[in-house]
């Protein structure tokens, strides 16, 4: 596009550029202006000197992270927990939204919706307390297992159970909340499509498969791409509430490691370096996902 063309476009569509201004200004001021702080990952942070004047140390903190004995274990655990959460946790709210959509009784539908989003509001400490209570040797789950003739085990002491418990409880806590976006997306589907399908004699299954699901695909794709951009970010709070030395080999993730190391000696620069490393990986993931999606579907972030 030539300069003249750009000029005419801006003049002709001036309103849309005026609308864009506050948004761009917001991002520049509140996100880009403080972003210089990321350089602290390459410096030795000294509070007295501040970020700008702290001395440079190059890749020291990154090396310190990569050289850790458990580095690969941390990467593996982080990715596995993320991928399991994605594989099981991502479709769950979509399925719930579709199932709710099939319910014809409005009263029942609303009740289930309202109840299913309740766990989202309960703090992690309490949720993890309930999980520990249920999975302990004398917990409810073991009561049931014993009743069925099984043997009691403490699930949170078994490394192989950590991921299922983590991912499963995550779904339980967030499935209702997550389904809200899809429920809203479903309302945007043109009802005429259903009417036409009904006249053609399409079964409900077919209507769901050929109308409802395609109708929410753009939303699914966007949320999926965003989700992939967070693959390296597994929060430490829930991990440290649930893990113990017996399950470290599957439970210890990057953030919990940084947290533990911070307890010994909190190093602002070190945690910034690890954060930056995660961000770069996330950027690669989200960019690839976006590219792929632009090729396959028509939806993409940019």
């Amino acid at each position, binding site marked *: 596009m030539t300069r003249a063309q750009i000029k005419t476009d801006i003049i002709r569509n001036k309103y849309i550029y005026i609308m864009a201004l506050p948004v761009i200004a917001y991002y520049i001021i509140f996100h880009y202006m403080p972003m210089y702080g990321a350089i602290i990952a390459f410096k030795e942070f000294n509070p007295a000197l501040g970020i700008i004047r702290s001395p440079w140390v190059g890749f020291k903190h990154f090396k310190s992270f990569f050289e850790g004995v458990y580095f690969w274990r941390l990467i593996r655990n982080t990715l596995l927990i993320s991928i399991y959460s994605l594989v099981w946790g991502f479709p769950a709210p979509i399925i719930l939204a579709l199932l709710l959509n099939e319910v014809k009784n409005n009263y029942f539908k609303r009740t289930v919706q309202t109840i299913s989003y309740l766990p989202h509001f309960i703090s992690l400490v309490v949720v993890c307390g309930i999980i520990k209570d249920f999975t302990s040797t004398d917990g409810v789950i073991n009561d049931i297992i014993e009743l069925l003739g099984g043997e009691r085990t403490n699930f949170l002491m078994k490394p192989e159970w950590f991921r299922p418990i983590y991912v499963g409880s995550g779904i339980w806590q967030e499935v209702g909340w997550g389904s809200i976006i899809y429920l*809203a997306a479903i309302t945007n*589907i043109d009802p005429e499509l259903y009417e036409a399908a009904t006249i053609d004699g399409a079964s409900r299954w077919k209507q769901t498969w050929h109308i409802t699901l395609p109708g929410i695909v753009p939303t699914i794709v966007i949320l999926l791409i965003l989700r992939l951009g967070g693959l390296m970010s597994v929060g430490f709070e829930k991990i440290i509430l649930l893990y113990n030395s017996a399950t470290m080999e599957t439970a210890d993730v990057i953030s919990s490691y940084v947290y533990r190391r911070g307890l010994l000696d909190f190093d602002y620069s070190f945690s910034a370096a690890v954060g930056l490393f995660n961000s770069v990986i996330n950027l690669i993931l989200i960019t690839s996902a976006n590219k792929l999606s632009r090729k396959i579907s028509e939806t993409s972030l940019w």
Partner: protein
Amino acid sequence: MVTKKTVGERIFNCINITFLTILAIACLYPMLYVLFASFSDPIELMKHRGLMLRPLGFTIEGYKLVFKNPSITTGYLNTLFYVTAGTAINLFMTSLGAYVLSRKNVLWKNAIAFMITITMLFSGGLIPFYLLVKSLGMVNTRWALIIPGAISTYNLFVMRTSFASIPDSLEESAKIDGANDFIILFRIILPLSKAVLAVMTLFYAVGHWNAWFNAMIFLRKRELFPLQLILREILIANDMQSMSNLEGLVDVSVQANADIVYFARLLVQYCTIIVATLPILFLYPFVQKYFVKGVMIGSLKG
């Protein structure tokens, strides 16, 4: 619309309703647990393991401890302000951004979207952010809780996806009638997007309702504190574990009745959840109203 149900559909309905009922029960349990625990006799609660299907004993001492704090009322009022004003600004800014990004032929649209995505992945950390907000003169003002978080990028993309699903024909015909972008956004797009607006309102409002971190960092004046920050204080103050040398039970055998008052601290973590969550739960029914399938576009076309 109503057609004869096939056998398969009937079976599906049964399974669906059973499944949703089980899910609802599973999701209801933690909230009930919290509710029951908040009214339970603290000593009984301390001894208790496993499922809790009713309050163990009954006391309101936990709530007394929570409401003893004189700042609770101002906290509620402040939160109400942050939720309303904050959500209003959020919706305005997010709508602008989503509209700009959902239009075709906006110059550098992809560049802007990419720039915005980057902010989800990279940040400069707390210190530069604090210095920025300080230099804007927002420290210790209500603005610090409203302006720096004016747009959630995640929500922006969700909204954009929804806007993009609205047929271009509407926009084009409006343009022919001489409408500018502001008119298109506020008169055509937004009224058609009630469902997603409702979801955004819910997400932003719940976000503001639950937020405490920025308040903690930026506010020093107690009269500006939101409810969550005050509840957090109460929670920390009453955390039995953190009171390391809690040898306060002089003459405990004599004052048997006082035990409940004393141990009521255990209940505080449950009471605060109830106190903090109940009001926001009432928002959902209002939001749900807009989830009626296909009303908007259908009515417009009809």
